[in-house]
């Protein structure tokens, strides 16, 4: 990699070739090294996989609400026979729903799409530090996509041991599906690591003159800290996947003790493996991964709220410190996924204390977002609606986490729908609301056109209503004793009282899925028909709004000089209610 990491010369004007970039369809749109194109590639793959993952969730919900009834229209094509979902299909559906949503939608969209698109634009760089590495980080996703798609068609079907893939179940599952899953996740990990190296280097080395670390927008801070998490945690997941691969394919026994008998046959007569080791490795990655999936969204929200409150972000430095604290503490709380796993209960107690403590920086963030709204001049555009929804729903997701953190309470609600509700409040109502807000907010910059506010309004209200309709009752049925990952809840007499609730949740889920139609329509039709966006349609301050919409090949004609932080709204120094980072003030221009 021979990238030049040199400070920018602010006086350098892009020469003729800068403005045009590579010629030819393939170099320009397919094998592109332009961070903006790569970001948009990640965004499109994310949307596509989001539909697949969402569809799988519909299959799961249909089965829970109306177990053992044929799926209308699609059933025979999907399941064969009479169109009934079997428990094998069910296990595959929820496993692949979670795997796809986490590894192919949320992480690649937050870090891959918005990280790529926004970081160079927001810090005033012409591209990433390692453009070719960046291209590879996207293209390594494709073999991973291939593995996941192929796994649906191999004998035995796709992986069916949950997205957590706990051995011995995952280590001994027959068929190619689980192996392909392991390979897919391993390759997504490579993509994450390559992306992380790039983001960290770019942010540390390629900032425009005057862009001190503490003048960076919160989005960049969040993506920076996320990249550090990805760089440090993903290799551990890689190790877990390699060991699992060896257990499955090479006859190793990293996670298999000699007592595991499947259908009466001892699987590894000389095995000295330890299944708990996998859980430690897995969660050592996957707990930080929760923050990988929420911190960037927190960053977006911290940029959207001030823009539409026309008011500086409340407590910029506390916000930065709390992101860092979340990331730091995030490495010592993984055991809270394992309170009932057979891990030493004394260790569980220590993990409970660190887990309770990680709620603190999250709380600080919520209070500061509220502080940002206080005394503002709020306009409720679609991105603002999603950002506000993020804050209010993250409160629920954060508070419900405290129940899970409390070890004695967790005894009862561990592996129930309570945790399913909690994690969806964080990942759907958190990460995805953040993604929607970010799409509406930066779409004009990406494509030069505005999305429709009218359709945005429909999309927002329907999504907000039905997502609560799906996910809130999960807390209730979970506390009411309904465990997760069961194909037929009515097998349990104690769960019959929740049948109606399950049907309400399922109907809401179907409507939630349909509520994404206005979004898709809006997204694709606005590419051609949206109103032309100027350079700065929201009157925002950060550097990306200095570029044309969409920005040209090397982003900036002249690398801007940064004079101040990104949140100077309602500044008394100027007449306007915003003061861009790149605008120099002379006595004459001051109000």
């Amino acid at each position, binding site marked *: 990699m021979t990238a030049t990491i040199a400070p920018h010369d602010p006086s350098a004007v892009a020469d003729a070739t800068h403005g045009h970039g590579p010629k030819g369809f393939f170099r320009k749109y397919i094998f592109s090294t332009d961070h903006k194109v790569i970001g948009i590639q990640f965004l499109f793959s994310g949307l596509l996989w989001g539909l697949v993952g969402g569809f799988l969730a519909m299959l799961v919900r249909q089965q829970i609400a109306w177990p053992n009834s044929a799926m209308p229209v699609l059933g025979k094509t999907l399941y064969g026979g009479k169109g009934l979902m079997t428990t094998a299909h069910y296990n595959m559906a929820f496993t692949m729903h979670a795997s796809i949503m986490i590894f192919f939608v949320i992480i690649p969209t937050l870090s891959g799409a918005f990280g790529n698109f926004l970081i160079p634009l927001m810090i005033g760089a012409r591209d990433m530090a390692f453009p070719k590495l960046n291209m590879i980080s996207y293209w390594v996703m494709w073999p991973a996509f291939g593995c996941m798609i192929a796994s649906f068609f191999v004998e035995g079907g796709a992986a069916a041991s949950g997205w957590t893939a706990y051995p*011995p179940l995952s280590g001994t599952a027959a068929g190619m599906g689980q192996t392909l899953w392991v390979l897919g996740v391993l390759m997504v990990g490579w993509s994450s690591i390559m992306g992380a190296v790039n983001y960290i280097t770019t942010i540390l080395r390629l900032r425009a003159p005057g862009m001190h670390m503490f003048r960076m927008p919160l989005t960049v801070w969040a993506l920076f800290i996320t990249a550090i998490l990805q760089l440090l945690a993903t290799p551990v997941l890689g190790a877990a996947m390699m060991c699992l691969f060896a257990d499955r394919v090479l006859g190793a026994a990293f996670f298999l003790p000699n007592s*595991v008998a*499947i259908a009466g046959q001892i699987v590894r007569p000389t095995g000295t493996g330890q299944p708990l080791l996998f859980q430690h490795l897995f969660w050592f990655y996957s707990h930080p991964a929760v923050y990988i999936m929420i911190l960037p969204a927190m960053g977006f929200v911290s940029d959207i709220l001030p823009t539409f409150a*026309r008011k500086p*972000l409340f407590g910029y430095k506390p916000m930065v410190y709390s992101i860092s604290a979340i990331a730091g503490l995030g490495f010592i709380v993984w055991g809270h996924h394992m309170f009932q796993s057979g891990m030493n209960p004394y260790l569980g107690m220590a993990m*409970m204390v660190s887990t309770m403590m990680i709620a603190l920086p999250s709380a600080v963030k919520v209070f500061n977002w*509220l502080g940002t709204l206080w005394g503002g001049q709020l306009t409720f555009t679609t991105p603002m609606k999603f950002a506000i929804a993020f804050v209010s729903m993250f409160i629920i997701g954060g508070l419900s986490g*405290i129940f899970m953190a409390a070890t004695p309470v967790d005894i009862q609600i561990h592996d129930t729908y309570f945790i399913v509700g909690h994690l969806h409040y964080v990942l759907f109502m958190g990460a995805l609301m953040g993604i929607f807000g970010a799409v509406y907010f930066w779409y004009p910059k990406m494509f030069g056109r505005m999305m429709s506010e009218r359709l945005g309004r429909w999309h927002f209200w329907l999504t907000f209503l039905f997502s609560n309709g799906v996910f809130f009752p999960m807390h209730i049925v979970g506390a009411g004793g309904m465990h997760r990952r069961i194909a037929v809840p009515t097998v349990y007499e104690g769960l019959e009282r929740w049948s109606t609730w399950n049907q309400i949740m399922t109907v809401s889920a179907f409507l939630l899925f349909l509520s994404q139609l206005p979004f898709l329509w809006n997204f694709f039709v606005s590419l051609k028909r949206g109103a032309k966006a100027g350079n700065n349609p929201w009157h925002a301050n950060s550097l990306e709004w200095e570029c044309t919409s969409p920005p040209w090949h090397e982003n900036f004609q002249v690398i801007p000089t940064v004079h101040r932080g990104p949140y100077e709204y309602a500044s008394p120094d100027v007449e306007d209610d915003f003061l861009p980072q790149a605008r120099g003030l002379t006595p004459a221009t001051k109000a």
Partner: protein
Amino acid sequence: MTDHGDSHHGGDHGHAAPAPPPPPASKPGAVLIGCLVVLFGELIILWQSGVFAKIPGIQPEAISSYAADVDGLFYLILGITGFFFLLTEGLLLYFLYRYRAKPGEKARHTHGNHTLELVWTIVPGVILFALAVIQTGVWGDIKFQGNMPAEKDSVVVQVIGKQFEWHFRYAGKDGVFGTNDDVTKLKDLRVPLGKNVIVKLRTMDVLHSFWLPNVRLKQDLLSGQTIRQWFKCIKTGTYEVVCAELCGLNHTSMKGALLVLPQEEFDAWLASRAAELAEDGGHVAASDPIWKHWKD
């Protein structure tokens, strides 16, 4: 107050469209702390008095000696989080209404407030830490090996989880496991009322999780290890035994029953089950396909 920007000069400026000066921060901060201390104190007192445990809940009926403690903690957390939920969402809604844009007005130009930051860091910090400490007693009672009742005063049951069945074994008349008078039973776990029960959990294959929803006990079965847990039922009846950890194709149907019987009925059942096994040719511990795998 303004600790990051360098283009502005101080925090709360007045400007052309005068916003009301922000109230001094220390006062509402002090009031807030006061309220929270009182609230938290009250919640603790209520929790100690056991009121929360009596709320008719959505939870499965509680039948064990420690279920009320677990539920009490659940409702304590519900009280505290419920308060903060109402506080934050209430403020959010109020701000959305109160600060909607008005033409020609500028927002308040402020970058934050140190006192507020300190208050809303320290107060939740103290509450969260206290909340963690409060949990440790009940957790230790249920899960610490050192706190478990002595085996000689308890009913000891060995449990094997196997795709997709629960197997239970009692020591039988001689009080020793692994002998031919052991009493085994598939699916149903019978325990006497009011007596400490120690279950020793082991899996033959993949992970399972032994969950008694009404007892408030859950423990994963970890391949290669035997894990000891305990409980004491305080109400008779028939309840469910659930596998709470995905264990494969028929995970859903890995279900058993927990029957809590008065001591005499339990003893009678144990004797009749032993006789039943003897009639069938006797339980031969060494050749039993399930139980020969047992290791303590």
